[in-house]
């Protein structure tokens, strides 16, 4: 098994410092490329590699970069931003990468900023990640002293909480000191982003891949996946499994291999009932889907999404209605309130599910819930928050229909 992103990380929470990172070949890609290869050629290597966004969207990174107008076409300030606002419930991969090997991220930033001709970079990291913030700040100081950042300024911006900051245009508003409300697209951030300037926003894991792609080439990277999709992926498993944790495996590894071989299967006395394959914004998959490859296309074909690739396992001793209620409460609380379907619809869902959990649910509530995904699904709201919320509701209502019915008929939660 080839480890790429986590090969330097021992998992004990210790940070890889500059010297150790350099010994492992770190910053070699910067020396090889900066000032020697044309920026457009770096963009091309990343495009050819098949690297796709690891924050949940899965959009091809090279294509995102190619949409940035050239410096000749758009003179003036340009920004490269790392989205490290890891708040998707069930997701803990970016924390691992930042706390363990912050220089890998910095080297990715230097290369990416060079490729898109940005002169300033920001890492937007959630404020609760104190250890990650300290690791990044220490690493930036080391890298500056070693002269590997060139002329690039890297700011660490600690966020002050709100899931919506992970949406790239809301993140831009937050970086401008405003409420984190998503912006209309178009214009894309590449054209009009931070302070109206051309801007790229990429997830931590995505950026961490860049040094390796530049060093070893696009073909090498494509060969790391086991199916059609490229690279390794930082998967995570949580819930009642024997070894919850972070696992770097080839893109396209099956859910079964991840859960049974790496996470050690279910704890004694518990059975796997369903999984959310990539965070709270993905749809449930049942036991019969465990052989599905964990890839963007694989998960889509199975009726869900790869999302962040961090799997939450629901066991047979946990109330699925309560689990879904927890997810919907989160989304209702974190709605920014900008558009009406999300602002009003999500609290409605939350209230109905809370009532069901305390035996106050009515039969007619089931029809109301079933109607919601059509009103808050893709295309019905300003951004992706509510459609993400609807994924678990829509799939959960079908998969756990009997449990929902029992809650309203018996007017009690059998797990309480």
């Amino acid at each position, binding site marked *: 098994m080839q480890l790429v992103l986590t090969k330097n990380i021992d998992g004990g929470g210790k940070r890889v410092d500059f010297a150790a990172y350099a010994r492992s070949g770190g910053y070699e890609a910067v020396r090889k490329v900066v000032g020697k290869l044309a920026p457009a050629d770096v963009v091309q290597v990343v495009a050819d590699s098949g690297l796709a966004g690891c924050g949940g969207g899965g959009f091809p990174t090279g294509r995102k970069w190619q949409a940035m107008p050239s410096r000749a076409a758009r003179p003036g300030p340009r920004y490269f931003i790392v989205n490290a606002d*890891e708040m998707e*419930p069930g997701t803990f991969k*970016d924390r691992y990468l930042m706390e363990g090997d912050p220089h890998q991220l910095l080297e990715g930033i230097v290369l990416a900023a060079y490729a898109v001709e940005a002169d300033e970079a920001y890492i937007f990291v959630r404020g*609760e990640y104190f250890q990650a913030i300290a690791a990044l700040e220490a690493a930036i100081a080391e890298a500056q002293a070693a002269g590997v950042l060139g002329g690039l300024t890297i700011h660490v911006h600690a966020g*002050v*909480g709100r899931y919506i900051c992970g949406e790239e245009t809301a993140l831009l508003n937050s970086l401008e000191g405003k409420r984190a409300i998503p912006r209309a697209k178009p214009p894309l951030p590449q054209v009009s982003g931070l302070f109206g300037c051309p801007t790229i926003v990429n997830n931590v894991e995505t950026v961490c891949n860049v040094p390796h792609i530049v060093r070893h080439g696009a073909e090498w990277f494509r060969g790391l996946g086991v199916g059609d999709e490229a690279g390794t992926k930082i998967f995570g*498993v949580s819930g009642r499994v024997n070894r*919850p944790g972070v696992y770097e495996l080839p893109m396209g590894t099956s859910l079964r291999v991840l859960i049974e071989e790496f996470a050690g299967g279910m704890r004694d006395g518990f059975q796997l009932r369903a999984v959310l394959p990539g965070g709270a914004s993905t749809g449930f998959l049942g036991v019969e889907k465990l052989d599905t490859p964990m890839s963007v296309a694989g998960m889509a074909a199975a009726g869900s999404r790869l999302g962040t690739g961090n799997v939450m396992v629901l066991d047979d001793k946990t109330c699925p209605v309560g689990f879904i209620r*927890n997810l919907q409460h989160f989304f209702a609380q974190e709605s920014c309130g900008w558009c009406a379907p999300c602002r009003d619809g999500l609290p409605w869902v939350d209230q109905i599910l809370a009532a069901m959990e305390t035996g106050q649910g009515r039969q007619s509530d089931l029809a109301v819930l079933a109607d919601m995904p059509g009103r808050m699904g893709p295309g019905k709201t300003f951004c992706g928050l509510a459609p993400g919320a609807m994924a678990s509701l829509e799939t959960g209502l079908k998969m756990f229909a009997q449990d929902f019915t029992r809650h309203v008929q018996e007017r009690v939660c059998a797990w309480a």
Partner: protein
Amino acid sequence: MLTGEDFSARGPAAAIDCLRALQKERGYISDETLAEAAAILQMPVAVLDEVATFYNLIFREPVGKNVILLCDSAVCWMLGREALQSRIFERLGIAPGETTADGQYTLLPVVCLGACDRAPVLLVGETLHGHLDAAGVNKLLDGAA
């Protein structure tokens, strides 16, 4: 007066950084602090309050010396965060959103802390504690006292 960085040069764009720095010094953002920040940033107080009240981690009311952020997301819920909340209530007499009378502790729920492999988890100040149960909460509070 606010120490460190000169926020006035950046104007309203520095709103969040400025509020965060002031809160670090003073514990929370009082009306007086908000007005002071608005003057530094050269923006209307009401517009700054719009920003301040949007974010989960900007406190517009006093909080205790130690803020406990208890993860309330799905995996921690599944693995027993309710028992942690109950034990905190038994020991300190505070429910989410409340502060102890002696001003030592405030308990707040927080969105997934990104440590689901160690669930259930909470933050006390800047330190993350994982794999907790009710007994673990006892140990934590005894150790901190």
